């Protein structure tokens, strides 16, 4: 977006202090779930396979394998108020921005190498 005022609206609405995620990271997304009157936090832990950096509408796609065989992908709008926080669990070394190739791999082939912590 080029317009100064639209940018300003975006800036204003964006949340601060969001963990800086990168493709290949394993992230725990804390999502607020409302059940009637009560509110609880649900955690979705998965690998960042794609990011869409568009200001306020920024999203991150997390992929996880649940029950060992069912792959689940969820797209989270980072600045949405339903997200409580993101917690980075693990960082890996990857060479692409979009890890869609993981969809075609399973089991051992879908592993990612841990990044050197230096």
């Amino acid at each position: 977006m080029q317009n100064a005022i639209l940018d300003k609206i975006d800036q204003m609405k964006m949340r601060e202090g969001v963990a800086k995620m990168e493709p290949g990271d394993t992230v725990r997304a804390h999502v607020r779930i409302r059940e009637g009157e009560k509110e609880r936090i649900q955690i979705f832990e998965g690998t960042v396979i794609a990011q869409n950096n568009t200001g306020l509408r920024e999203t991150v796609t997390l992929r996880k394998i649940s029950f060992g065989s069912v792959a689940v992908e969820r797209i989270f709008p980072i600045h949405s108020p339903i997200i409580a926080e993101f917690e980075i669990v693990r960082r890996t070394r990857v060479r692409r921005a979009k890890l869609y190739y993981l969809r075609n791999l399973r089991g051992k082939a879908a592993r990612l190498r841990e990044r050197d912590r230096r």
Partner: protein
Amino acid sequence: MAPGILGKKIGMTQIFDGQGRVIPVTAVQAGPCVVVQRKTVEKDGYSAIQLGLVEFIKESRVTKPRLGHFKKAGVEAARYVREFPIAGDAELKAGDRILAAEFKPNDRIDITAKPKGRGFQGVVKRHGFSGGPDSHGSMTHRAPGSIGQSSYPSRVIKGVRMGGRMGGTKVTTIGLQVVEVLEEDNVILVRGAVPGPNGGYVMVRRSQKQ
């Protein structure tokens, strides 16, 4: 309370509401506006205020008759001037400022503007006709079909909807909702779309219907 304000459409974006739902909004630069003239029943036969949108504009860009009109009110030269009807006892006089802060979230407003010109359009786009089938040997794809009867009346009745110029004529979208007001920027965020191109001038009025 001001009956309305003049503004400029900035463009659309999205914001989140408290439950994480996305609301499409149009940002409208609303004001600052200045009352250029107060029309009264005694003098003009009806009661209204004439508002000008305050934008920096060279005096040489304004026609001389208009410049004189602004000088008389002692206000800045404005490119966009419109009139709003107002109750006879309203306390607004020439020179008064009207700002976006007049509006509050959840206010209902009507927006009048000139939509984008669409040029010569067929009957499907212009009037929402369904057209004919695309395939199975069909030869009437986007044609209007029959436009009247045969020997009697032997002519096409006036007002039959056909293709032609679309857009570019004044339109009012009614019952729009104010989502947020950014007072320091004089910007209001309106839920949904507003007629006209980005950068087009718009007239914002309080809705008659609530």
